[in-house]
């Protein structure tokens, strides 16, 4: 593996992101704006927690952070399918760049956006009253949860790009993977919807649960629970990512 080639692709992907500033601003601001709106609307609403310790916004906040990572599915699916449509993938395939290098580059570049969204989102959340009193390790683990969720989203994006014949179709198809995760395991925690019986299949369930409990201080009270969710998310992400790579390789030579 040649790292220089990986960063050549990362640089190009970042240029792609910045080539359409309007769309970049919109997607970057989506999560912070949701946090701002829900923070203002539901920061004082305690309808979901009889003990009135956590507001509705507190409970939804981890899901908003995870949502930014889920949108990676759309970005990867549309960009890979678009490159295939334009014949760019065909040209790339004839260079010494390996699939492992290409996909690692996708992962690195598409992690940038959720992390910026996290920073902006957390800043806004803090401003509107979401101030978890947890240590730096908890914050680092939150970032790890988001990175792993992004990892699985890149995999879903690659799977989607292989199923679709065009960038437009891939963009639409991406929502087959985004919407169920968004509805049943992200914005509203699965336990609050009685959806735990099937939400366990979604990577976002483990990320939202893990982040939520980390912010609630579970690293000191129940670290096993956090590590359990992290391990399952890691395992699921690796499986999805591997399927994504296999399908990408298959499509490359079919």
């Amino acid at each position, binding site marked *: 593996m040649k790292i220089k080639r990986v960063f050549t692709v990362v640089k190009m992907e970042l240029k792609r992101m910045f080539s359409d500033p309007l769309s970049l601003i919109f997607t970057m601001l989506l999560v912070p704006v949701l946090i701002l709106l829900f923070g203002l609307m539901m920061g004082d609403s305690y309808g979901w927690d009889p003990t009135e310790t956590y507001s509705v916004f507190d409970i939804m906040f981890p899901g908003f952070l995870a949502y930014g990572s889920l949108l990676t599915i759309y970005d990867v699916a549309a960009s890979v399918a678009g490159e295939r449509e334009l014949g760019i993938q065909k040209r790339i395939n004839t*260079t010494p760049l390996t699939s492992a290098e290409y996909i690692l580059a996708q992962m690195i570049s598409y992690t940038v956006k959720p992390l910026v969204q996290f920073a902006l989102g957390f800043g806004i959340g803090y401003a509107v009253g979401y101030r978890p009193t947890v240590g730096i390790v908890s914050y680092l683990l939150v970032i790890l949860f988001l990175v792993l969720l992004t990892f699985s989203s890149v995999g879903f994006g690659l799977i989607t790009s292989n199923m679709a014949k065009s960038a437009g179709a891939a963009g639409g198809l991406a929502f087959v993977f985004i919407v169920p995760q968004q509805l049943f395991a992200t914005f509203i925690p699965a336990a609050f919807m009685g959806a735990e019986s099937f939400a366990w299949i979604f990577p976002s369930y483990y990320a939202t649960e893990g982040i939520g409990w980390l912010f609630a201080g579970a690293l000191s009270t129940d670290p096993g629970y956090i590590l359990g969710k992290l391990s399952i998310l890691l395992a699921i992400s690796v499986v999805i990512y591997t399927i994504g790579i296999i399908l990408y390789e298959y499509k*490359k030579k*079919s």
Partner: protein
Amino acid sequence: MVQSKESVGSDLIGNSIEVQDLKKHYKGKRGMDDVKAVDGISFQVRDGEFFGLLGPNGAGKTTTISILTGNSRPTDGSATVGGYDVQSELHNIKEIISVCPQEFSLYKFLSGIENIKFFGDLHSMPKKKIMERAEKLLKLLGLYDARKRNVKGYSGGMKRQLSLIVALINDPDILFLDEPTVGMDARARRKVWEFLGDIKKQNKTIILTTHYIEEAEALCDRVAIIDYGKIIAIGSPKQLIEEHGVNDLEGVFLKITGRRILEGI
């Protein structure tokens, strides 16, 4: 298959490409017969030769190139490029080839020079060498002044020329050109022909697919005329024309198939 005397490979010169009974079949949809995109073709391309695959659309030219460049797996048969097997030694092949695909295959949001640099970097070329070579190629094809402009604003002909420059940036030993002048006006096409003529002088092996008769006649040392996935004639344009007693390669195709190459395009 009609084979001219010149098509027989010489033992004195090595072959850059050897193709033996190559097949690529696609499963027919909904009970239809399988599609035989490439149906048992064999040919050799000598080192430093300008070799053309000439035929109508859908004849199997692009599929053949796709197999030789690792973009498609053959159903059967074998092929080597630069002495390396296309199935098991593809990583070695990628170090010595370059492809100019039929599609524009360029990043629209990057400038001309950024596209060139991107592909040069993928070939692990030193930055200085990329810039020197890019400048030379851009000037030769008249794109130097437009190098910093986004490709999105290029005309169709400029995109084709840039695509050719990108294919040449790594100074490949073997160059595959898939319909490189499609959509160009006559003047631009002539310019590319002159350019390719100069490239040929550098002893590069070039494989060109085209359905333009005059392009094959002007550039190629030898051509394989391909139809329905099979090679129906192979040899130098001059030899094939003489042997069939016709005026051009179109006449050769017409005489063998009863159709014109440009029919159905």
